[in-house]
C-alpha cells in the first residue's frame, strides 16, 4: 500500500492530469491503461497532447483479445468465470433490492429516534453483511479460476506480462483511465499490472480510480430502467480500502436527497464515499493520509455533502 496514488476527477472536458503529474516533480514517459475504452483503447492522442510527453499505451484490451485467440482454453475458462459472476450478481440483486427498500423506508420514518434508530442500524448491518457475503462469493469464483486456469503459468500470458513490464520499466508513472469498469479491472487483474507497476506512482480517474480500491461500487440513482440500487460488483485491486470513489457524482446521484446520501455513506462507512467531479484530486504519498484538493466533497452520514478533510 505504500506507494503514491493520485485519484482525479473525470478528465474528458477539464483535464488536470498534467498538473497533477508535474506537482509530483515527475518528468518522463507515462505508461497508460485505457482498456476501459475497449475498442477505442488505442486512441490516446488527446492524452499525449495534454501531457506533452510520450505515452506508452499498455494496450491491455487488445492484448487480452490476442491472448484469448491464442489460448482457447484460457478464453473458455474466462468466459465461464464471467458467466458465473453475472449469475451471482443477479442473485445478489434480488436480496439487495429488498434490504435497500427496507433501509430507505426506515430512513424516511419520523418515528421516535430511540425506537427507529436501532432498526436503521440493524438494516445497515444486514446490508453490509450482504455486500460482504457477495464479495466473499466473488472472491471464491476468482480463486477457483486462478487455481484452474493458472494464468501465470501460461506462456502466452507471460509473454504479454514481460512486454508490459518492459514498458512500465521505461516509464515514470502509470495512468489508468476510466471506461468500462469490469473490462478494465479484469484486464488489470489478468496481466497483474499493478504488481508490475509496484514502484510507479499511479494516476487514475473515473473507473480507473474505482478499480484500485477494495470494493468496486456501481451506482446511479436515476437510471431510465430499474431502481437505481448501488451495488458492489467486485473487490478491486486493494491499493486502498478507505475510499469509495464516485465519479460524476452530481450527475449520477441525487445528492439533494438526504435519505439516499445518508444511506450510501452509512452503508460503506468507515470508507468515505467521495464525489469526484472534474478538476478535483486526492493524493496519497506512501502511507500518508489522503490530501484532497480544494472542493473535494464526500457523502455525509447526515445526508449532506461535506468537505473532505485530510485524514
Amino acid at each position, binding site marked *: 500500500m505504500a506507494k503514491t496514488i493520485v485519484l482525479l476527477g473525470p478528465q474528458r472536458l477539464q483535464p488536470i492530469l498534467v498538473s497533477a503529474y508535474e506537482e509530483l516533480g515527475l518528468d518522463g514517459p507515462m505508461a497508460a491503461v485505457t482498456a476501459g475504452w475497449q475498442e477505442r483503447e488505442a486512441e490516446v492522442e488527446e492524452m499525449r497532447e495534454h501531457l506533452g510527453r510520450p505515452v506508452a499505451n499498455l494496450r491491455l484490451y487488445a492484448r487480452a483479445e490476442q491472448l484469448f485467440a491464442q489460448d482457447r482454453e484460457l478464453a473458455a475458462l474466462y468466459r465461464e468465470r464471467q458467466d458465473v459472476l453475472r449469475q451471482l450478481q443477479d442473485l445478489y440483486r434480488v436480496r439487495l433490492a429488498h434490504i435497500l427498500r427496507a433501509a430507505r423506508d426506515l430512513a424516511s420514518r419520523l418515528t421516535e429516534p430511540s425506537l427507529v434508530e436501532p432498526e436503521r442500524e440493524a438494516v445497515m448491518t444486514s446490508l453490509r453483511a450482504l455486500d460482504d457475503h457477495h464479495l466473499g462469493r466473488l472472491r471464491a469464483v476468482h480463486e477457483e479460476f486462478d487455481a484452474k486456469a493458472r494464468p501465470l503459468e501460461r506462456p502466452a500470458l507471460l509473454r504479454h506480462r514481460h512486454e508490459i513490464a518492459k514498458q512500465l520499466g521505461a516509464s515514470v508513472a502509470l495512468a489508468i483511465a*476510466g471506461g468500462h469498469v469490469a*473490462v478494465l479491472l479484469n484486464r488489470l487483474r489478468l496481466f497483474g499490472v499493478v504488481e508490475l507497476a509496484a514502484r510507479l506512482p499511479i494516476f487514475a480517474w473515473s473507473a480507473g480510480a474505482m478499480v484500485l480500491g477494495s470494493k468496486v461500487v456501481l451506482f446511479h440513482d436515476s*437510471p431510465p430502467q430499474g431502481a437505481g440500487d448501488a451495488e458492489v460488483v467486485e473487490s478491486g485491486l486493494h491499493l486502498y480500502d478507505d475510499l469509495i470513489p464516485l465519479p460524476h457524482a452530481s450527475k449520477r446521484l441525487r445528492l439533494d436527497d438526504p435519505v439516499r446520501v445518508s444511506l450510501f455513506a452509512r452503508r460503506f462507512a468507515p470508507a468515505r464515499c467521495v464525489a469526484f467531479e472534474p478538476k478535483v484530486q486526492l493524493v496519497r504519498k506512501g502511507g500518508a493520509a489522503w490530501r484532497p484538493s480544494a472542493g473535494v466533497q464526500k457523502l455525509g452520514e447526515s445526508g449532506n455533502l461535506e468537505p473532505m478533510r485530510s485524514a
Partner: protein
Amino acid sequence: MLAIHRLEESRKRLSGKAIDEFLASHTFPLVEGPSVTFVFRGEADNVLLQHFIYGLPTSRPFRRIKGTDLWYLVLEVPGESRFEYKLNLVHGNAHQWIRDPLNPLNARDPFGANSVATTAGYERPDWTYFDPEARTGSFEERSLKSKALGRRQSFQVYLPARFRKSRRYPLLVCHDGDDYVNYASLGLVLDNLIHRLEVAPMVVALVSSPRRLVEYAADPGHASFVAEELVPYLEKELPLDRGIEARGLMGASFGGVASLSTAWRYPGRFGRLLLQSGSFAFTDIGHHKRGPAFDPVVEFVNAFRNSPGKPSEKVFVSCGTYESLIYENRSLVPLLQNTGMEVRYSEARDGHNWENWRDRLRQGLSWLFPGPLWMVYE
C-alpha cells in the same frame, strides 16, 4: 376565481389599457390548476379553439368580453397534459387557422406547426435539449435499388458518435425517419441518450416513403424491402451485431403498423419493436369507419389478432390518452403479452404528434437497447 374572470368583473367597461396590462402581466395560455385560459385579442366574428384532444369536442367557441376585442375560452384539462391547438378566426364564411399569437410555444410537424399548451406537471425532458457535452453522431445519405418497391430508395443512416468499424452495433430501422429527425429531434435525442450511456451506441436506418399510406399499411412489398433488401445491405456495409436482440424496428402511427407487420411477416428477424401510437385499427364485426387508407391496415390487424404468432422478443408500445387510437393500442397490449413477448406499455396525456413520440423515446429505447450506464464511468 380565475384571472380572466377577475379582469372581466373588475370594471363595467374594460379599457384598452386594462387589457394591455392584463396581457402583459400573464403568459398564455394561462394555466390555473386544471383550468387553461386561452385568450385572443382582435376583431373577428367568432374565434374557435381547434385542439387535438380526442374525447372533447374539437372546436370550442371563445367568448368575447362585451365592448372589447378580447376573447377567451376556459378549458378544463388534467395535470401533466400536453396538447397542440390552433385558433380558428371566423370572418363571415372565411375561416383562418392560426397559431396562438400570445403563445410562443410551437411544435412543428410535416403540415406546419401548432401552438402547444401544457398543464402543471408536464415538463419537457432535459434529454431533448441540446447538450454541449454530448458528442454528436453523423448522418450518411445512402440509396438502394429495391426490387420489392420497384424504385431506388434513398434513406439516411445515423452513425453514433465515435463510430468505429472495429465494433459491432445494433441496427434500428426507423419508419418516417426524416420526420423523426426533424420533428421529434431523433438525432439529438440519440446523441444525448448515448452520451448518457442510457442507450447503446447504435446504427439507425432512417427510411421514409413517398407512398407511406400505402407502403406502411402492412404492405408485403415494404416488409420485403426492409427484411430482404435493406437489412442485408446494411449488414454488408456496416459493422452490425447479427443477433436478433440487436435488430429493431420502430415507427409511429402508420409507421407502427409497418413495424409490427414487417416483424410479423418475418418472425425471428427483429427482436426489438418500438411502436408509437400505432394505427392498429381493427374490427370485431362489420366494417371500420376510418376511411379507405385503413382497409389494408384493418385487414392486417384482424389477421394479426387472429394469429399473432411471436413476431419479436421485446416490444415497447406507447400512446397518448388524447388520441383516437388509444383504444386500439390498449387492446393490443394484452394480445402482445399473450404471445410470450416481453411488453412494456406507456401512456401520456398527449396527442398524436411528434413531440409526444419524442418524449417517450428514452423510456422505449433504453429498455429495448440498454446502454452501459451501470458499467461505464468515463
